[in-house]
């Protein structure tokens, strides 16, 4: 029934299984180094729809279909859907999931949503309240720019700390039984706000949250810092990744050898994204595309996913407020034979 290990961490004793996963991305992500790990690359930024918002909903809808197909289940087999996105009131998800008629919890954790949804989904499975749940998130470069920054055709210059919102959707099917990567530990983040007010410097805003959660994870589980084959943060980007490594070292945690960040993995430097990728889909597609594939092929056996989120709004930024950040960690492991 799960064991509480500390203030932020629990261990799931039934070890819920990630039975299926899927990731669909946009054209730019499809040109990146992880291209071959994604289920589909959509070249059209409108995805055949009339607006970017509708396109984002379609990303979710199609990813859910892919997950169901790969898991060989139908919508009737899914008891809950845990999902969210970046748009106001999470409308991309609400429109995207409406046709599926699966009972739905809408979540907002900004770019940390995939780990938040997996945390809650696997707790529900662990507690026996559901046999199968789907946890999914999305983001779209064009709809996010519109909401958080400037119109697409406005000729402004990007500061060097800025990041590029990933277009796409990634999600997983979590069930109580079966083969596949298993969710073993969950460390839920708390808000960490170090006073960064620049919305173009989200790496610096989120790095302390990632450090806080990773430190809590290792302290509360008592695991050695070489336990995981990979520790991957969500979307700190080059700048935030650098800060994160240095802050962790100050806390006495040395994971430099196995640490990476989804934001720095999804694009190659010559793609002109400055510090790298961001957005809900950044960690979601890298996790559901690349990382779970590596786990299932047993190229790695233990993974700690630490999805990071910057919980500001355009209004809070304009009013000069600092950026509240959060990071949720999920420990995923292959069954040892």
């Amino acid at each position: 029934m799960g064991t509480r290990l500390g203030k932020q961490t629990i261990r799931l004793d039934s070890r819920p299984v990630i039975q299926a996963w899927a990731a669909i991305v946009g054209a730019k992500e499809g040109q990146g180094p992880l291209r071959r790990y994604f289920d589909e690359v959509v070249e059209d930024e409108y995805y055949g729809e009339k607006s970017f918002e509708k396109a984002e909903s379609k990303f979710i809808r199609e990813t859910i279909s892919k997950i169901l197909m790969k898991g060989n289940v139908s919508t009737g087999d899914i008891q809950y859907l845990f999902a969210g996105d970046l748009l106001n009131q999470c409308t991309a998800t609400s429109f995207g999931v409406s046709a599926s008629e699966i009972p739905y919890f809408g979540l907002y954790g900004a770019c940390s949503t995939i780990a938040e949804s997996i945390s809650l989904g696997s707790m529900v499975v662990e507690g026996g309240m559901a046999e199968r749940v789907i946890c999914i998130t999305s983001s779209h470069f064009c709809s996010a720019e519109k909401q958080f920054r400037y119109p697409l055709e406005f000729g402004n210059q990007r500061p060097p700390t800025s990041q590029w919102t990933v277009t796409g959707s990634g999600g997983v099917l979590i069930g109580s039984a079966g083969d596949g990567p298993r969710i073993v530990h969950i460390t839920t983040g708390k808000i960490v706000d170090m006073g960064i007010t620049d919305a173009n410097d989200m790496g610096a805003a989120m790095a302390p949250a990632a450090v806080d959660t990773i430190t809590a994870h290792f302290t509360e589980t008592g695991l050695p810092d070489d336990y995981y084959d990979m520790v991957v943060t969500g979307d700190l980007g080059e700048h935030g990744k650098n800060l994160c490594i240095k802050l962790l070292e100050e806390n006495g945690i040395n994971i430099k050898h196995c640490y990476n960040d989804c934001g720095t993995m999804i694009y190659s430097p010559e793609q002109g994204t400055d510090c790298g990728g961001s957005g809900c889909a950044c960690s979601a597609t890298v996790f559901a595309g690349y990382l779970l594939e590596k786990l299932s092929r047993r190229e790695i056996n233990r993974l700690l996913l630490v999805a990071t989120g910057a919980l500001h709004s355009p209004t809070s930024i304009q009013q000069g407020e600092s950026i509240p950040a959060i990071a949720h960690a999920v420990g995923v492991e292959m069954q040892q034979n």
Partner: protein
Amino acid sequence: MDKKMTRKEYMQWSQKEAPKTRKGKNMLMAFLIGGTICTIAQIINSFLLSAGMVQEDAGTVTTLIMIFLGAFLTGLNVYDDIGRIGGAGAAIPVTGFANSIVSPAMEYKKEGYVMGVGARMFLIAGPVLVYGIVASIICGILYYLFA
């Protein structure tokens, strides 16, 4: 998170670690792009003058043509690239002003012609207009009083 570091210390440290703006390159590109835009305007102006237009009219027509070009290149999805490279060199000339009005108009077309295009068109240019007009009123009053 290490509690030893205060917010202020963290902000200073993270800024020190941040990738730096390439000021030299940016200034050079702003000079080249801004200079090119102004040279094009000068060519148009000289042409209009040589065609027999008086100085004042030629200036107005040149500005109109440049506004058209800025708006046209925005519609062709080109001006954002010019702006990304040229920075202030592309933002300061009147072509940049046209870009700042046309780009939100394009973006918000989906929200309708009244609440979308109409209401959001001056999202970026609005403050420039407001304070430009306020400044000109103040100048006008000062001119009236002291000239």
